[in-house]
Structures are given as structure tokens and as C-alpha cells.
């Protein structure tokens, strides 16, 4: 099936006020998301994940590159996009409390995306009620103000407001990182339920790898504004081929006393400044496997099988080092056994 979203060679540069240098926030990001698919976009803070999401929804304009939504070019900011696409791409924010107008009743906040789309008040009311039901909130909450809800409930409002326009793609910008573990699990479960029912595609931006592993079909790992590795979620987690992915995965603390990740690749030092990017591979200065050629040229994307793309000259060597495979797989099985989950779905 043709992809819902295609991102090709996306660049974003932010000028720095009072200076001639620019922050190179995104440097040639390409990926695509299929219908009903979840792409997990992971990376540490400052890697440009959120900027990618904001370019896609049209809050900021990309400096270069193309964005296509079901074949239609949407590389411009939101206001200049084709009108019939309004509401087809939705956004859920990281901080649920800040994403809702504190002086607006919940019902009105959920209704807001419909206001510019015509339709009668009765019709809007019906859609609000349906959305509220879909996200598991009670009708009485429509008359409350955001401050009267818990963070988990506020995020449900954020999701209700996103699905009310019947979007085909929702950009989820770290939707669970401001929540406590219980609420986090509930929101993830809700998102998966909505995807099953409505077939919505997700771009799930997060730095929480265990959550990403759970919800994503495919994964893209970002480092300094570029996707260094992407592929099937299970495969990337099992056989990470980029040293950065290995480093990132080994930083995960699995909530299990007997399982710990042994990494043979440990990254040194700090993430370089996005103002003066290194000339070769961005990771060269931190990578224990770096050779001379890594410092001079950016490794091209290489397909290691089944659409698993890696930007690394030495990905074969990485594969030999890597022992994360088993641990993650083991943990997943262990978790599923404890939670009584089969095939990734909660048992009824």
C-alpha cells in the first residue's frame, strides 16, 4: 500500500539572532509511514525529533526537502497547504496541561479543531461526544476546566481533540513522558486501541525506548538531526547495526532484576553542537569503532535487508559486537508473560 506520509531529505536550519551562524536542527531526514503503521522516532534530547514533528504538522516550515501526504505535496506551512487536508494530520503534545487553554472548558477544547470546518453545532456536539467516548472520558467532564483533570485525563482530552477531525496521521510528540507510569500505560493502551479501531498512522516521538518498542511497528533512530538507522522495530532492537543505536539501547534500564544489557560499544563524550557539525559521520568523535574514513565522509544509507537502513561504514562489525538482542527479546517475553499479553495485545 502507498505510504500515508513520505519525508524526503528534510532540512531545517534556525538562524541565531544577532549572529550569522545557524542551528542545523534537521539534516536530511527521510522516512515514510504506511497506513495504520506506527513509526517510533527515538533519539536523545536535542536530536531534532520534535522539530521533525512540527515540520510535518506545519507549525514550522522546513528549509529544504519534501513532505508528501498520500502523494500530495505538503512541504509548506500549514496555512498554505491544500484545504481538504486540514485536520488529516493531527498533533498531540508532550505537556498535556500546557496544550489546553486553561480558561476553556474541556468540551470547547475538543470542539476547537472543528470550528473552522463548518458543520452545525449539533453535528459538532455529536462528534465531541463520540470522541470523548472513544478516549474513555466521562461526558460530565466536558463542563470542567483543564486544571480539574489529572494529567492522564488531560492527555486523553488532547487525544480526543486530535481524533475528532478523523486524521489519518497523528504526530505524537512524547505524549507519555509527562505522565506517571500508570497513566503512561493507559495512554499507550488507548493509542493502540484507537489505531486498531480507526486505522490511524502514528509518528510516535519519544526517548523512552521501552515504550517505543511496545507501540511501534518500525523505528527510526535520530542523532544530531539525521536518522542514523531505521527499520522494523523488532529487528532494530534485536540487531542494532549503528553504534549510536547500540549505545542508546544499552542506556535503557530494564525494569527487571535479572536482566541487564551488556553493551560492548560505549559512546564517549557529549553530543556535538548542532551549530558546527563535524564534516564526516556525526558520531565519529564519540564512536569507539571510528576509522579514518568516518571522519571525512558521511556514510551513505545502506540497506542491510528488509528495509533496515543504516548509515555506518562498519555496520557489519557492529553486528558482531552486539549482544543486546537476546536481552531485549527476553525482557519482552518476560513482560508479556507477566502481563498476560499475547501478540502485543492486552488479553481481554
Amino acid at each position, binding site marked *: 500500500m502507498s505510504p500515508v506520509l513520505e519525508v524526503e531529505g528534510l532540512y531545517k536550519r534556525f538562524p541565531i539572532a544577532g549572529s550569522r551562524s545557524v542551528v542545523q536542527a534537521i539534516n536530511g531526514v527521510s522516512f515514510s509511514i504506511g497506513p495504520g503503521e506506527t513509526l517510533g522516532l527515538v533519539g536523545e534530547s536535542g536530536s531534532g525529533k520534535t522539530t521533525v514533528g512540527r515540520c510535518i504538522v506545519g507549525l514550522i516550515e522546513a528549509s529544504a526537502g519534501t513532505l508528501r501526504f498520500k502523494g500530495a505535496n505538503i512541504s509548506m506551512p500549514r496555512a498554505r497547504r491544500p484545504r481538504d487536508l486540514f485536520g488529516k494530520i493531527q498533533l498531540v503534545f508532550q505537556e498535556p496541561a*500546557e*496544550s489546553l487553554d486553561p*480558561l476553556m472548558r474541556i468540551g470547547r477544547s475538543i470542539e476547537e479543531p472543528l*470550528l473552522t470546518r463548518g458543520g452545525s453545532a449539533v453535528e459538532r456536539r455529536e462528534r465531541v461526544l463520540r470522541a470523548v467516548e472513544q478516549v474513555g472520558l466521562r461526558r460530565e467532564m466536558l463542563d470542567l476546566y483543564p486544571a480539574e483533570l489529572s494529567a492522564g485525563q488531560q492527555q486523553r482530552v488532547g487525544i480526543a481533540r486530535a481524533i475528532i477531525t478523523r486524521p489519518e496521521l497523528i504526530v505524537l510528540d512524547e505524549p507519555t513522558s509527562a505522565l506517571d507510569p500508570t497513566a503512561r500505560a493507559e495512554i499507550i493502551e488507548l493509542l493502540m486501541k484507537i489505531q486498531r479501531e480507526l486505522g490511524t498512522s502514528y509518528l510516535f516521538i519519544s526517548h523512552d525506548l521501552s515504550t517505543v518498542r511496545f507501540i511501534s511497528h518500525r523505528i527510526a533512530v535520530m542523532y544530531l538531526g539525521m536518522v542514523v538507522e531505521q527499520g522494523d522495530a523488532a529487528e532494530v532492537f534485536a540487531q542494532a547495526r549503528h553504534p549510536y543505536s547500540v549505545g542508546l539501547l544499552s542506556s535503557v534500564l530494564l525494569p527487571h532484576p535479572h536482566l541487564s544489557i551488556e553493551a560492548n560499544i560505549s559512546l564517549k563524550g557529549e553530543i556535538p553542537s548542532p551549530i558546527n557539525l563535524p564534516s564526516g559521520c556525526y558520531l565519529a568523535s564519540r564512536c569507539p569503532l571510528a576509522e579514518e574514513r568516518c571522519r571525512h565522509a558521511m556514510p551513505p544509507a545502506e540497506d542491510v535487508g528488509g528495509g533496515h537502513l543504516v548509515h555506518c561504514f562498519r555496520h557489519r562489525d557492529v553486528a558482531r559486537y552486539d549482544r543486546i538482542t537476546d536481552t531485549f527479546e527476553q525482557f519482552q517475553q518476560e513482560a508479556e508473560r507477566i502481563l498476560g499479553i499475547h501478540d502485543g495485545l492486552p488479553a481481554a
Partner: protein
Amino acid sequence: MNLLLFIGRRLLFIAPQLLGIVLVSFMLVKSIPGDPAVLMLGPTATPEAIASLRNSLGLDYSLPVQFWIYLQHLALGDLGTSWQTTRPVLEDLLQRFPATLELVTLGLLTAVVIGISLGLASAFNRHGVLARIADFYGLGAGSLPDFWLALVLIFVFYTLLQWVPAPLGRIDIAVIPPNPITGFLTVDCLLTGNWEALRSALGHLLLPVMTLGLINAGPILKMTQSTMEKILQSDFSHYQVLCGIPHRMVVRHALHNALPSVVTIISVLYGYLIGGAVLVEIVFSWGGAGQYAVQGVLNSDLYPVLGFVLFSAIFSLFVYLFVDIIYFTIDPRIGH
């Protein structure tokens, strides 16, 4: 109904608040060094004369007793007598307080108009010309002393251009003011239809009002600008933009959210200016309440000072009550 309950509860607290204010200010004023009896009788007075005056003024009672006597008089509407003007303080204040209030209110209104409109304009377009003017203005208004600006305005508009009358009081000496009804000269002129007096009063108001307006627009501008910017950068404003809500509506929602902070700074300025405008009053020989109180402090004239504190306190309490009512109407969560 909710609002009435809210106001009722607030009014209930006003009496004890006032009592506390009177107690504290009585003790503070009494602790100012200087013996009024000595000042009243002058340097050649005999110790016996001073002692007998102290006795007749009740100054040889203990402080709590003096306070009790003051309260008893207060309950009867007697705020004491000023030995400088030899008139009852209540009469003096009823004449001077409206003068200050008229000046401060109009000055603050000017400040609100300048501050909010510039603040909004600069939040609207952060890189526009208006935003730069606003930044520069905020800096300037914050660093200029008001009495200095007053003197510059007098020099330019009275001495050089002669567009305004001499900075001596509230009305030309040759013009007969209307009989006081409210004490606000402009209002009284309007009520009595005395256009000549109104023209003169407005002319005299122009410069001091401009002074207070230009200086006090600074903090209002800063508050409007920073709050609006923060809200327009917040996720919910971004989301409204994303929904295709027109820019003007997004700004209106943001303003609704910014209003409580702006109202707060305005109310603080209002309460402060009643006494804080005294330097401007002096420059324009305004004859207002602030000037009256400062004279009282300098000459150990206790009752005018206490009277002024009491008037300002009542005024401030009502301003804050009014502000709470405004909060109540702009923030739907309060009554919810």
C-alpha cells in the same frame, strides 16, 4: 449569586483589615521623632506652655489610651484637626483626596491605553517596528524619574510653546470653580455645565496626567508584552494556529489568559500612585492628598497623616475588591 456571595465575604473582612491598618499606622506615626507641641508653639515657648499644650492635646496619655481616644473619635466621623491648616482633617481630605484621585485615575488610564496597546502590538509582531519602539520605551519609562519628566514637559509645553496654562494648581485663579459635588473638578464642571471651568481644568490636568501616564505605562507595557509572548508561544496557542483559528482569535484567547496579570499590575500601580504621585503633585502645586500627608509628616502633624493612611487604605481595599470582581468575571474557573 456566586458573585454576590463572593463580594459579601470580602466585605466582611474589610472592617478588621481597616482596624489593623489604623493600629499599625497610628503606632508608626507616633514613633516619628518630634514633638508637635514644640513645633506648634515655636522656639520661644516656655516649658510650662509646652506642658500645658501637651496636656490639652492628650499627648501625655499612654499610647494605648491615645489610640483608644482616636478610635472613639473616628467612630463619630472625627478624624482630628490639623494644626497647620487649623481645619478638621476630614474636611481637608474630602477636598484634597478627590484632587489626587482625579489626577491618578486619569494618569493611570493614559498609562493603560499606552501600555496595553504597545504591549499587544509588539506581541503581535515580535520583529516589527512597534516591538522595537516598545522595547525602547519600556527601558526609558523604567529609568526616568516622574518629577524630572514633569519638569521637562513644563519646560517644553508651558515655557517654550505656551500651549498649556502655568503649572499652578487645578484651575486658573481667574476662573471660578463650580461648587464641589463629587470633588472631581472635571465631573463637577460637567454636572454643572460650566464649560469655561472645564476647559481650564482639563488644561491643568494635561501635563500631570501625561507625566503619570507616560511613566506608568512602562510596567503595564512590560507585563502585557511578556505575558502575551509567553502565551502565544504556548502549546495551546500553537494548536489553535494549527486548527486554522484566525490569528485575531488566537490573540484574543491569549489576551484573555494574559488579562489577570495585567489587571494585577494596574491595581498595584493604582494603590501605589495615591501616595506615589506626590512628587508630581508638588511640581504642579496640585494641592492633593499626597502633598498634604507629606506636609503632615514633616511637621509632626499627626492627624492628617493618619487620615491620609485611612483614606488610602479604604481606597486600596476597594480597588482590590474591584479587581477580585474583575478576576471573577474574566476567569471562569474561580466561580466554578
